[in-house]
């Protein structure tokens, strides 16, 4: 789950609350973060059936403003940001110059009445993203754009699960029933000014909430209190990983990387080649035109088997064809699931794979993804 930082680790404003709640703390992307409280299986099921609260204070945010903010994001990200209306969001990627990916990101156009964009990035990539965008801003010095790094001034809390709307509605006058998925508003929750996105990384309905960093603790307490009747519970990074995997959401460093094309990662839907020029476009267009040589496929292991894990070798009939990018015991399906990046010729729903676990092949079959889709979606 990311690299352990050898230096001093940072703590979010919620650290003491996690410890008091009995969380196990681990180093993650340079931070001391809760990996689990009650247990990964229980927390996972909590989010699928009720609601869970996540401290995402390690993640990064920036504002992109100025007259050419749109042109800059069009040039430096893969999705078509021009399609976003006020307060709308899109998933996208920050490319390198070779058609690979520096980070995957969420771009929110600011709500009605405000100019510019709000971008959420991965904790582990904050420094390299800022360096990359800085380099691209120099390259495009013709564009008048200002990047404002907000990670140290904003907190980030997510509430995810079917009861999320009912819980947050108790704390805000904003009519959440009319707030579409993938949208952003400025509002107050428990009288605390926040940016509120109806987004998430679990496959459930929910919200990502950005308060001023010094109000993060108050916001966490207010939401936990409001969610008592719904049985709201805090959720660690362990369940966050199994939730996102069931929903087939990519994790940077596993499904995505500097040497993996978005088309190989199965994220071609977030690359808009027809929007005009952008960094790495020619390389991505070539991969699309020729067809990706590798594909990211979903699979399940057959029978009682050890779990597939990241970097395990994948074979077909004794030949190495790729490796596992993510794998886990799925708490919802109660079987082992995984994603693997394999040679395209071997990809196809129903086709077999063998996952090499501790030197022995484990039989697996490719299946449709996502592994889990919430009812009504």
């Amino acid at each position, binding site marked *: 789950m990311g690299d352990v930082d050898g230096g001093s680790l940072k703590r979010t404003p919620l650290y003491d609350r996690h410890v008091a709640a009995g969380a196990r703390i681990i180093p993650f992307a340079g931070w001391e973060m809760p990996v689990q409280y009650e*247990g*990964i*299986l229980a927390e996972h099921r909590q989010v699928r059936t009720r609601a869970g609260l996540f401290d995402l204070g390690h993640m990064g945010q920036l504002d992109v403003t100025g007259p050419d903010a749109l042109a800059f994001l069009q040039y430096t990200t893969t999705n078509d940001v021009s399609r976003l209306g006020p307060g709308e969001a899109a998933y996208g990627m920050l490319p390198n110059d070779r058609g690979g990916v520096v980070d995957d990101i969420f771009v929110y156009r600011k709500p009605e009445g405000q100019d510019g964009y709000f971008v959420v990035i991965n904790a582990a990539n904050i420094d390299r993203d800022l360096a990359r965008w800085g380099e691209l801003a120099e390259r495009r010095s013709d564009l008048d754009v200002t990047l404002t790094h907000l990670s140290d001034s904003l907190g980030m809390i997510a509430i995810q699960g079917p009861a999320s709307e009912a819980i947050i509605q108790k704390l805000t006058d904003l009519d959440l029933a009319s707030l579409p998925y993938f949208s952003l508003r400025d509002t107050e929750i428990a009288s605390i000014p926040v940016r509120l996105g109806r987004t998430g990384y679990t496959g459930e309905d929910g919200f990502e909430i950005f308060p001023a960093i010094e109000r993060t603790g108050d916001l966490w307490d207010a939401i936990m209190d409001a969610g008592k009747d719904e049985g709201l519970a805090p959720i660690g990074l362990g369940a966050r990983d199994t939730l996102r995997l069931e929903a087939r959401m990519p994790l940077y460093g596993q499904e995505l990387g500097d040497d993996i094309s978005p088309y190989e990662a199965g994220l071609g839907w977030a690359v808009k080649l027809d929007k005009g020029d952008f960094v790495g476009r020619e390389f991505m267009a070539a991969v699309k035109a020729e067809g990706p040589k590798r594909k990211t496929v979903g699979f399940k292991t057959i029978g009682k*088997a*050890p*779990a597939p*894990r990241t970097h395990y070798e994948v074979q077909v009939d004794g030949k190495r064809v790729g490796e596992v990018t993510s794998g886990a*015991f799925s*708490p919802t399906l109660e079987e082992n699931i995984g994603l693997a990046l394999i040679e395209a010729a071997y990809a196809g729903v129903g086709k077999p794979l063998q996952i090499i676990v*501790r030197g022995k092949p484990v039989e697996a079959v490719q299946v449709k993804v996502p592994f889990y889709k919430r009812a009504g979606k």
Partner: protein
Amino acid sequence: MTSPQNLKYTKTHEWVLLDGDIATIGVTDHAQQELGDITYLELPEEGDAISAGETFGVIESVKAASDIYSPIDGEVVERNGDAVDAPDVINASPYEGAWLIKVKIADPAQVESLMDASTYDEFAGDAH
């Protein structure tokens, strides 16, 4: 944390119960807590030889796979098939329901050299 007094313990968080020349081996409560929800267990077959300091099985939680080490030399005479079928018993009952294997041992002195409960508790407490 107080581990059962009648068992001996290893630095790799296994416990051993010696009864004549039969040693029963499991993993400690500390180990199951560190592992979290256990989802898969791999054990040797009856008749397999195991050696002190070497792995004889694998225990997997949602998060990770961990080796189980043998503290002794011997031959497996029984394996806990119920724990293989439903490995979460290791979380629920690490010292009772979740014994893993019974081993006919050659040298009982190997067990005597292991940690007693209070030494292990101190060790596991410091290992955090």
